[in-house]
């Protein structure tokens, strides 16, 4: 309570950001928009007088799971985010206005908040059929997306759709669904992948920007390092069973009931960079592996086209050996498990560097 009329500036000052850092943020923003120093002071002025950062949340081809995930956030509660932290001026999933009253908000935002709004994109634009596989206001969604990107302060790609293409871009990608960084090429884009991303990761990224007054540090693929720099496998609570060569052999067997490792059931935890095994889901209740199903790798590029979700990760081409785990695994696994353990006790740390082998969304 009570923060509703605070300005963006007063919020970040209260959170310990110096005036100097604040101005640096404004300059960087102006630079990334290709604007001059005058624009920086205009941005600073706006953030000092405008209460909350305007957020424009657009939807392309998607399933709305990212929006649904966002509203699951336990900290902050989504009502506090929307009432006190950001100004969610456009989001076709929840906004009161429709039709031309909705469209008018986009025009107004570009005119009034040039360089001051965050563009959050859920879903992606299809390019086949002149873009008309996703029509918005009678026009191709891709046009609206490009237009709103031009004047955004920062762009967030929510989820696997906006980041990589996701399910509609899986082979043969009939609509030529295209990740947003392929159509917005002149702006840095923060990718927050996952199908969907974890709720608290989503609100964490947004509030990081408003709290620290800067964009999060990104890895080479454009993902915030704070949530996406380690594999599910690195922090999995079932990892000791992997190292010990104790595996589930079939669904609902004794090993499954004891909570052994799901590697042999196709778990993609060893090649998936995400925060599921640490932050976990829905207020920390569980995550896929804890509930007995392997990770399907939903935050990885092209995860739909890497074979069945139940295929073991035997196709990894580059191996690095973790010696201790390997030795322990080999000893414990016994005769039958030995071959598996040999595969299992490798890590796919080099996977990060490997490219999408067989997927090309944009051909």
């Amino acid at each position, binding site marked *: 309570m009570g923060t509703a009329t605070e300005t963006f500036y007063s919020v970040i000052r209260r959170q310990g950001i110096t005036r100097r850092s604040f101005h640096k943020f404004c300059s960087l923003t102006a630079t990334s928009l290709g604007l001059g120093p005058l624009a920086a002071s205009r941005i600073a002025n706006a953030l000092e007088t405008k209460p909350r950062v305007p957020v424009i949340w657009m939807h392309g081809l998607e399933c709305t*799971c990212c929006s649904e995930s966002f509203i699951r956030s336990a900290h902050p509660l989504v009502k506090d985010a929307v009432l006190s932290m950001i100004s969610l001026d456009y989001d076709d999933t929840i906004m009161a206005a429709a039709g031309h009253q909705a469209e008018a908000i986009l025009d107004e935002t570009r005119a009034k908040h040039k360089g001051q709004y965050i563009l959050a994109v859920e879903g992606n634009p299809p390019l086949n059929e002149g873009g008309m596989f996703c029509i918005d206001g009678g026009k191709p969604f891709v046009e609206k997306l490009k237009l709103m990107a031009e004047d955004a302060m920062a762009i967030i790609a929510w989820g696997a759709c906006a980041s990589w293409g996701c399910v509609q871009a899986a082979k043969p990608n009939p609509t030529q669904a295209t990740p947003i960084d392929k159509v917005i090429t002149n702006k840095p884009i923060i990718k927050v992948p996952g199908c969907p991303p974890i709720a608290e990761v989503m609100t964490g990224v947004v509030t990081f920007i408003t709290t620290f007054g800067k964009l999060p540090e990104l890895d080479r693929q454009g993902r915030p390092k704070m949530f996406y720099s380690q594999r599910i496998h690195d922090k999995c609570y079932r990892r000791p069973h992997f190292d010990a060569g104790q595996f589930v052999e079939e*669904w609902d067997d004794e090993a499954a009931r004891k909570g052994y490792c799901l590697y042999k059931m196709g778990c993609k935890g060893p090649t998936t960079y995400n925060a599921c095994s640490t932050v976990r*889901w829905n207020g920390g209740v*569980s995550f896929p592996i804890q509930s007995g199903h392997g990770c399907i790798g939903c935050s990885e590029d092209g995860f739909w086209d890497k074979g069945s979700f139940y295929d073991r990760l035997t196709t990894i081409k580059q191996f690095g050996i973790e010696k201790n785990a390997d030795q322990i695994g080999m000893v414990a696994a016994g005769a039958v498990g030995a071959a598996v353990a040999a595969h299992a006790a490798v890590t796919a740390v080099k996977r990060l560097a490997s490219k999408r082998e067989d997927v090309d969304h944009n051909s």
Partner: protein
Amino acid sequence: MGIQTPNGFNLDNSGKRIVVDPVTRIEGHMRVEVNVDADNVIRNAVSTGTMWRGIEVILKNRDPRDAWAFTERICGVCTGTHALTSVRAVENALGITIPENANSIRNLMQLALQVHDHIVHFYHLHALDWVDVVSALSADPRATSTLAQSISNWPLSSPGYFKDLQTRLKKFVESGQLGPFKNGYWGSKAYRLPPEANLMAVAHYLEALDFQKEIVKIHTVFGGKNPHPNWLVGGVPCPINVDGTGAVGAINMERLNLISSIIDRLIEFNEMVYLPDVAAIGSFYKDWLYGGGLSGKSVLSYGDVPEHANDYSAKSLKLPRGAIINGNLSEVFPVDLANPDEIQEFVVHSWYKYPDETKGLHPWDGVTEPNYVLGANAKGTKTAIEQLDEAGKYSWIKAPRWKGHAMEVGPLARWIVGYAQNKAEFKDPVDKFLKDLNLPTSALFSTLGRTAARALESVWAGRQMRYFQDKLVANIKAGDSSTANVDKWKPESWPKEAKGVGFTEAPRGALAHWIKIKDTKIDNYQCVVPTTWNGSPRDPKGNIGAFEASLMNTPMVNPEQPLEILRTIHSFDPCLACSTHVMSPDGQELAKVKVR
């Protein structure tokens, strides 16, 4: 003048044309065009699905055991219901049975989705069609408290509670940044609630936003996450281990207690907040009984929530199964999803091509070839549509028909079928709801009826969850901890060719997937989903679909503000990502056009 449709509507497109695009507060992309006469009454309605994703094309040649994950991504709002439909289709094709516990757990997940979806739909997608947020600022908190306490014993109802909320809302509005409430239709005469009812509803809007995230934890326990929990062909992936070694990592006592406490809380929310709110709001709109459309004529329900594992007969299904046509409630017809003469899809007004477009095709033999062309009288260009021509092709949604009839599906359809079958668990709550508002049975066939049926169903679903939680525990107690059947897990055990159909009742209506499997891979996959039924364009005979029918003859207070259109369309809870994807048997190459 005008055209009489075979299903009984008089269409007149001579009046002023109003376009609403995008229709917001729905899942996906949709457009509505209507013509209003000199009195601003809607005399022609055109609903258009404006997206296509092609997921069934993508499914071809994949492992049938993976299909649940792909189809689950058809929709993140009704998350899980496509996955459940998919595993049922594969199990039906391959003759796989599931353990009793898996049936109870699936029902718990499906019912949790019903409750979650209904609550989020009412408060966050639909309420702003009835509730004027800005009017809440002028409410008297004390009178609001009196109102709230007169309709329910819900504890968050003190004058101070409403005063604090109003203060927060005031600060929010005074900031000049209205966020999602910006450019709303505040102050419109189409809003009828007194300020106190508006304030109470805004309070519950925010409470429901807090609470909905608790409901889905049931998915997280059994499926690991929400949205998009994990499912399994042959059962459920979560093992049960109540007191053995490793129990702490499986469905154990702590997990069962968590589920149970969530069920208690959602029953409370349904019965102390949701249903009383709908009744209270309904009491101010009880003479606004527009929007009935097809509901008083033709409704369809496949049924769902099997009492017994592997028994999908009408007798086992707790949500009713059947079809009603021509408004004759005294006869409920059986429905056969495998019969090629019952469910058929037409494309004469959809952006697809058939060899013979006068005929419909059963989903097992479905063909889809995108064919994006506008009708001769459309205005604008192919990539800048100003006005569609409903005499030509005008939607990415196909037109499914049951024995040639356009049907409405959804909570209201289910409850009408249950009512017509004289089932007390459906008939009694409906009669009580109507009696309390002093309305006749016919009032059920309306936008308000659709919204009420959804609330009644949420109450029903909460009670059913208690039943299946108890059943699960009793079965474990009796010594059965099985959750998966792996006899036919390996593709080597499958026949060379197989076909099957799986169905559910998604929150927004009847949903089915048809699958053909060949050489252990998917050969053909078709989904006919609730919004394909409800959002259907016209068919070759000229029958209009449920959305279009529901808008007919509704007067608008101000045609510039499409509040009445939104209210009625939202009452169906449209899901456009679901409705608009179909499969070509050969996954044909599509034309590529570069944009700019």
